[in-house]
């Protein structure tokens, strides 16, 4: 056995725990957490308040209501991921706070794992709040009979998608020099670039199952009331829609999570404060 092989000790776990607490404190103290909190509360409230104000009825089923309400989960997840994970590593180097943080008796990887988990926790909290408000609205409109297994599945998929989004942004934070670059690249990649690439593959009739944003559709698809968008009948336009497969989608999200998390830790660990 290699005598230098690293074996994590209880000290490392304690350091990770301390970093998670410290990072969560930092997330709470920064005003930008308010942006995500406001969105998490405001979006479901709009879907709850606007239909009665305009004299419209709510969707006929609880799942239908949830599907329209949670249609913005994707945006909230990407925004939260970019905000909470975008500068976790690049910020320490750009702002030179790393000169304060790194020469301490803890492994750099413990610091980075702690930072990752804290970013993930913050994103999960925001998404959970979004779902909680949606569920409360469902309870008030449809009663507790409106709660369904599909909503629970959607919540699980949203948390999994959060994890892969945080991993992607975390990876960019570990390789980029500037916080603004890592945050914006993560945000626009997930919100615009990958959806455009997905669209290109779709036009070329290639199933884009391997693109993370393609699988994000599962969050509302599992509710069973997918919008049948597209062109109207008789327009003479035919195109293929590739629907993400549930288990393959879970596999793709998990793969992005694991690969980019470990790549991010590896890259961050190699970075030096030159």
């Amino acid at each position, binding site marked *: 056995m290699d005598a230098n092989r690293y074996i994590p000790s209880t*000290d490392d776990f304690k350091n990770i725990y301390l970093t998670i607490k410290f990072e969560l404190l*930092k997330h709470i103290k920064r005003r930008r957490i308010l942006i995500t909190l406001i969105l998490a509360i405001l979006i479901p409230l709009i879907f709850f308040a606007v239909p009665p104000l305009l004299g419209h009825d709510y969707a006929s089923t609880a799942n239908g209501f949830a599907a329209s309400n949670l249609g913005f989960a994707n945006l909230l997840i990407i925004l939260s991921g970019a905000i909470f994970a975008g500068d976790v590593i690049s910020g320490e180097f750009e702002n030179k*706070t*790393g000169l304060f943080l790194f*020469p301490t*008796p*803890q492994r750099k990887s413990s610091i980075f794992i702690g930072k990752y988990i804290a970013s993930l926790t913050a994103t999960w909290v925001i998404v959970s709040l979004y779902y909680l408000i949606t569920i409360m609205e469902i309870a008030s409109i449809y009663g507790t009979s409106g709660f369904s297994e599909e909503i629970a599945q959607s919540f699980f998929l949203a948390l999994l998608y959060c994890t892969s989004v945080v991993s992607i942004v975390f990876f960019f934070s570990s390789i980029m020099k500037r916080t603004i670059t890592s945050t914006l690249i993560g945000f626009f990649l997930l919100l615009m670039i990958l959806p455009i690439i997905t669209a290109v593959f779709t036009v070329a009739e290639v199933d884009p199952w391997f693109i993370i944003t393609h699988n994000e559709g599962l969050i509302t698809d599992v509710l069973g009331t997918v919008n049948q968008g597209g062109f109207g009948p008789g327009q003479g336009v035919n195109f293929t829609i590739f629907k993400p497969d549930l288990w393959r989608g879970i596999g793709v999200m998990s793969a992005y999570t694991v690969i980019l998390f470990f790549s991010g830790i590896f890259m961050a660990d190699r970075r030096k*404060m030159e």
Partner: protein
Amino acid sequence: MLSKTVECPKCETHITIQGNPGETTALICPNCNTKGKFTFQKEKVEIKTISEHNIIEVKNLTKMFNGFKALDNISFNVKKGEILGFVGPNGAGKTTTIKLLTNLLTPTSGNAYINNIDVNKNPTKALLSVGSLIEVPGIYDYLTPHEILTYFGKIHRMNKNEIDQKIKEVLKIIKLSDWENKKTGSFSTGMQRRLAIAKAILHSPDVLILDEPVIGLDPRGIKDIRDILKRYKSKGVTIFLSSHLLNEVRETCDRIIFLDGGKIVTQGTTEEIMHRIKIDTIEAEFLNQLTEADIKKIETIPEINSFEKENGFFKIKFDGSPETSNKILTKLTKQGLKVVSFSTKKADLESFYVSIMNEEKGVM
């Protein structure tokens, strides 16, 4: 009666001995039975004293950045309780050395040890008893000193009561007590610097590694830091200090290393360095204003290298020997010049620094 704690060279057990000045005390290590003796007055030790133990040891350290050699095979050590001054111009390699000592950089070759532990191979253990201040660190401006220091206290495994007590203590030392619960975003550069020092000393480290600790501080702040260094030195803390302020170095350091171009130019105890600084000037004052003829007479004295007026005094450059000084005084008097004051002056550390840096560059 004197008291001294020494360390057994075999098992490193600390042994406290007592004796009178001049007295030689026989020692037997209670742990491994190693025999030795210690003489109080002459400081001759058979068993290695703690103060001789190297806390920081740098061996053949080299650091390359994209083909540029920032550090070129340097070696030095710092003994327990010693303050080592690390002096050099910008780009000399001071901060690179400090970053290598704190595992912020990896050496291209060579090793840096703290308490005999290789910093690069086992940083968590090596940095356990180290407090550091490197360059001008950024500070989480949305947090308070209490929140920031609490985290670092926990990382050093201090308990909550201990952390709260130490935070109050260090903030008092660095004069930031009134700012304990205010966001650091409103702090001036000097206050941020003080906070960084508070972080460095919070866990009562055995080793302090400080990179330009007085940058951004006003004269009062500089004095405060000097007092802190003296206070920690008296507690036996080993201090590695990089600084541009040569007077600070002279006043606080036991030993000085001069670094330039990534190489050690010269080193020695502060006393040795100051001893190497030559007396080369005589400051003289005359009763009457010197006439042109007087000045010509003075210039004919062969022992005088140069002669100029500065701030009401005449500065006479000579070879620095007491004999020459005496000859010059005698000749001035013989020429009928009424000397009111006549004193030799040493060049300061700054002039020494400039001269050795010039020597290194071949500018003389």
